[in-house]
């Protein structure tokens, strides 16, 4: 059997997913046995020009991590889609936008404002900002266009499989690679993972839930046995796809939802919101309002920490922001 071709690319992401790939440890040798790496900017040499020259569908597997924030990233997404037989949205950023997607709460203008003008660690006396086009004596230079709204990979090009997690657990990566290598694949378009949520593997004791106040992690030292949600902590476990092995609850920290929604769920934040609200122990609209306001000061950041860009609403209303400004 001849070796297959593998591409690993990163867009709007932090690079943690690449580290996680290396986390499969000695099994990386198996990968090396199976594939020639044609592009892996983080770990190996490789040129876009080379990829462009490949025939369509000649890359057997492309692991694409990161969301689409710039025109260059979109170009690469289109390119790799065309050249790859199997395109995997690899990790939370490509899957659902992840933390970079929270930038969708703001406009490009606001992001630039913070990044190039307001940041306390900044030294930019000239107030320089990146521009798509700049004229220099030698001619016109182009930087990628910075989008107002971050898109997921799936919103940009057709994706074959999704591998959730921030980052995906190394074991899950290996399982997925194994599945791909052995051709034991779920139907295209699906998430490679189990269809249940974190509570399924969480060992904490659960009873019926009634919440009088949501607490933030610094406010309580949770007891180690009881369900964290029942202790008032906003634990996203009930709504989050299993796969991580309930790592956070194991160390007494509530799940923050990096594995995204369970199968068949359209909007992760809505599921979590509905579930959390349902168990608020009050029938009085004003009290409910107070509990929510005090317990969830940043509702989008809490409910949509990883999934804003792939949610039904995708971003905040620009109008409202314009009004604010």
């Amino acid at each position: 059997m001849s070796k297959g071709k593998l591409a690993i690319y990163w867009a709007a992401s932090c690079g943690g997913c690449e580290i996680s790939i290396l986390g499969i440890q000695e099994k990386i040798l198996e990968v090396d046995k199976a594939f020639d790496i044609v592009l892996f900017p983080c770990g190996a040499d490789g040129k876009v020009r080379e990829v462009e020259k490949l025939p369509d569908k000649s890359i057997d597997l492309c692991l694409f991590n990161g969301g689409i924030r710039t025109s260059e990233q979109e170009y690469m997404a289109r390119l790799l889609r065309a050249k790859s037989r199997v395109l995997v949205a690899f990790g939370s950023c490509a899957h659902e936008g992840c933390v970079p997607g929270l930038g969708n709460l703001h406009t490009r203008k606001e992001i630039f404002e913070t990044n190039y003008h307001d940041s306390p660690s900044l030294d930019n006396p000239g107030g320089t900002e990146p521009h798509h086009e700049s004229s220099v004596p030698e001619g016109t230079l182009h930087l990628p266009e910075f989008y107002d709204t971050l898109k997921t990979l799936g919103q940009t090009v057709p994706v074959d499989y999704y591998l959730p997690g921030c980052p995906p657990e190394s074991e899950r990566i290996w399982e997925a690679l194994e599945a791909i290598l052995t051709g034991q694949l779920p139907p295209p378009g699906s998430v490679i993972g189990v269809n249940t949520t974190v509570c399924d593997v969480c060992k904490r004791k659960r009873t019926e839930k009634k919440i009088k106040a949501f607490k933030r992690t610094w406010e309580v030292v949770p007891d180690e046995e009881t369900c964290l949600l029942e202790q008032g902590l906003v634990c996203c476990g009930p709504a989050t796809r299993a796969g991580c092995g309930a790592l956070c609850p194991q160390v007494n920290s509530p799940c923050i939802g990096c594995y995204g929604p369970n199968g068949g769920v359209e909007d992760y934040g809505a599921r979590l919101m509905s579930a959390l609200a349902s168990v608020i122990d009050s029938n009085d609209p004003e009290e409910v309002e107070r509990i929510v306001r005090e317990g969830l000061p940043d509702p989008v950041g809490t409910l949509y920490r990883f999934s804003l860009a792939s949610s039904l609403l995708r971003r905040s209303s620009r109008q409202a922001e314009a009004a604010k400004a």
Partner: protein
Amino acid sequence: MSEAFEPRIVGFLCNWCSYRAADLAGISRIKHAPNVRIIRVMCSGRVDPSFVLKALALGADGVMVAGCHPGECHYIEQNYKTIRRYGMLKHTLKAFGLEDDRVRLIWASAAEGQQLAEAIDRFVQDVRRLGPLNWPRFWNEDPARLAAVEKMAAEHAEAMEVPA
């Protein structure tokens, strides 16, 4: 006034009270604004926040949820769950930058055809004042983005076989 903005509003009405109130408004010929398009659910407790989000994302200018009066739910107490979810939803929508008047929870018993019609008229009026929402344009219309990608594709054209 012929070009006045007519909002599209999706209304989720519970089968037992508010849907029947809407029926009663009809039976009593109580004229009201035609803007609320009604979807029947068994109970306001069935209204998943994602229904509201979906309606907004698909172009509704406003969403109305209506149920039996608190304490009078056909299913004993389920509309209290509606109150809780509505509280959380409104809090979240505010963070999304949505105007307060775009989503409203109202109560109407099966006997309150007139009241429901008035509530609908008020709501339509309030949404009309806010103007169109048209949420999809918040992420859709970004010509600069498309132009930049096209430009890049053109620059790399000699090697590209990507369909435009």
